[in-house]
């Protein structure tokens, strides 16, 4: 209504939010990938990867949900896109942190990756206490 005469106000708001979230996503993707390359150690790269997954995939997928719901020229297809993107976003929110955690724990336990550089490593000190 404001910019696009085809849309009603609600759709337009959804579209704009979706576009903003998509832009955030692309930005986070690039930053995350730069971080992946720049950071010196696996444990530090985990943080860059989080930027790439949460900012770079979950937010934009929510954005795509809103955006596709607003785009009425897609016809019935927009529901498929919206639901697919929504479910994927939920799945990523649930699984991405667990994947990172599992990898980090495995890397620490198998001692394949040194925690370097570090300020402190309490896990190494408490290692024997955690063994169930």
């Amino acid at each position: 209504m404001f910019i696009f005469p085809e849309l009603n106000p609600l759709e337009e708001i959804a579209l704009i939010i979706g576009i903003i979230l998509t832009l955030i996503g692309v930005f986070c993707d690039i930053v995350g990938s730069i971080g992946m390359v720049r950071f010196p150690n696996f444990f530090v790269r985990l943080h860059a990867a989080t930027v790439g997954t949460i900012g770079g995939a979950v937010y934009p997928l929510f954005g795509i949900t809103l955006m596709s719901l607003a785009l009425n020229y897609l016809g019935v297809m927009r529901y498929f896109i919206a639901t697919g993107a929504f479910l994927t976003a939920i799945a990523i929110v649930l699984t991405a942190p667990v994947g990172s955690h599992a990898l980090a724990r495995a890397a620490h336990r198998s001692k394949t990756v040194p925690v370097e550089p570090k300020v402190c490593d309490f896990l190494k000190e408490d290692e024997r206490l955690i063994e169930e």
Partner: protein
Amino acid sequence: MALENFISTFIVVLLPAFLISLSLYAIRVIKGPSVTDMVLAIDCITYDLCFLMGLLSILFKIGFLMVAALALALWAYVLDVYVAKYLEAREVGD
């Protein structure tokens, strides 16, 4: 038609950014000194591709293509868990 054009242009303009970030992740997969690094980068690539799949389904106007993203995300998680399991325990069924 103006809306469709706008959205298509918007998506097309974003694509080079994806190519850059995917390439950088791929570099990490190639370089990654340890297996965990590589798997982490693969995670990022798959989640990134999920996002790209969403944008492209809007660009191609085909909703049926979106189902793939969910499967990709879930299987990437399974791969994570299995690599972690391999590194932690010698026996996978443990």
